[in-house]
């Protein structure tokens, strides 16, 4: 039986933190092996555990994975947190890579020279305000949800002017606009026909259960 994933790193955030978050979000229990001295790192290197002599390293499914991105991609794929096709993956990658850029700037801050620190902090502030926070995966997923909510009941977001504004703003981004046009890969709402087809394909009535569930939840939300 597979053991829990083992995370090898220093007892600090650094490059292991995003991996920690992803495993936690996927509900996966893991062990942490903290490197507390130079000797600990040397031992891992001498034992041939670290492909490029670096940590993070994650022992999972009989593999010794290194390179933060490779590890994150593996975990995301394994636990279905990586979109359903290569186009969705490309979008997710774009957002997470952008986030990684900002993260890297913040990560390297403690190790830069004192003279450079103020300039670097100013750069992080400028980029955060003007490039990164203005758009994130959270915005995209929220807007997607708003569209679905509207399909259930078009009046639902009418009392949320800020959400409406967000929906309009995001929908007008060139990429998103294209995706919202007819003929794009975007799928139509689940209806009785697609539920029936889903039933034929899968052995559980999963789709039907989900649709019922969704309707139930929104009715509950409406009643509150």
């Amino acid at each position, binding site marked *: 039986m597979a053991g829990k994933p083992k995370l090898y790193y220093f007892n600090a955030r650094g490059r292991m933190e995003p991996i920690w978050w992803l495993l936690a979000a996927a509900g996966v229990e893991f062990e942490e092996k903290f490197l507390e001295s130079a000797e600990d790192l040397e031992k891992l290197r001498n034992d041939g555990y670290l492909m490029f002599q670096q940590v993070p390293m994650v022992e999972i499914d009989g593999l010794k994975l290194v*390179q933060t991105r490779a590890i994150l991609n593996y975990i995301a794929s394994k636990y279905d947190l990586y979109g359903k096709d290569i186009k969705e993956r490309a979008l997710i990658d774009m957002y997470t890579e*952008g986030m990684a850029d900002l993260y890297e700037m913040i990560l390297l801050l403690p190790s830069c020279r004192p003279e450079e620190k103020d300039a670097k902090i100013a750069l992080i502030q400028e980029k955060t305000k003007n*490039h990164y926070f203005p758009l994130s995966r959270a915005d995209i997923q929220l807007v997607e949800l708003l569209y679905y909510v509207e399909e259930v009941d078009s009046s639902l977001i009418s009392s949320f002017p800020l959400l409406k504004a967000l929906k309009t703003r995001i929908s007008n981004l060139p990429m998103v606009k294209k995706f919202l046009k007819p003929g794009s890969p975007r799928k139509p709402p689940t209806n009785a026909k697609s539920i029936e087809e889903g039933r034929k394909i899968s052995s559980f009535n999963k789709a039907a259960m989900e649709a019922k569930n969704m309707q139930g939840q929104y009715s509950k939300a409406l009643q509150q």
Partner: protein
Amino acid sequence: MAAKPKLYYFHGRGRMESVRWLLAAAGVEFEEEFLETREQYEKLQKEGRLLFGQVPLVEVDGMMLTQTRAILSYLAAKFNFYGKDLKERVRIDMYVDGTLDLMAMIMLAPFQRPEEKQETLASILQKAKTRYFPVFEKILKEHGEDFLVGNKFSWADIQLLEAILMVEELSASVLSDFPLLKAFKTRISNIPTIKKFLQPGSQRKPPPDAHYVDLVSNILQF
């Protein structure tokens, strides 16, 4: 019929070169729009085409993709250069990420001050010979196959060849202790689509020179 992918970048290698390699390896024709002025760059930003305000930008399959790795992963998957399952994919990711770490140092060097540049170049050669090339030499030795992963040509092979050639431009004898990598280099270079890309007249870009460094520093304002 699908439109050709369109690449928006400076007329030089930088972060776009790996994308050019991947497209070339797949035998896919592509168009390029070269950024020559600050105004052009700002225009792209204003048009909202650059998700985080940066290039590379690749227009492909109806998407405006930015972020080098996002672009490369998408193309690798699209052209079946990404392994046959998750375990092969993670191996390709690990090898590629290691290689890209090495290449990032090479990419940065021309933009550094002369004193830093010397240090960086020395570090690049040292890391290539002690951290990166030995790993790939060992991988090739252990499975004895022609390609790095799954006995099939993949993104990992393309990325490694690109890196080898770039390091050789800094030191022609860098592969002297790596016989399997030497053979690998020859073998991959002879793949027809790669061979074509390596010939004069292809869309492969030359190493950065002073003009390129000035151009990019001016446009990106650093």
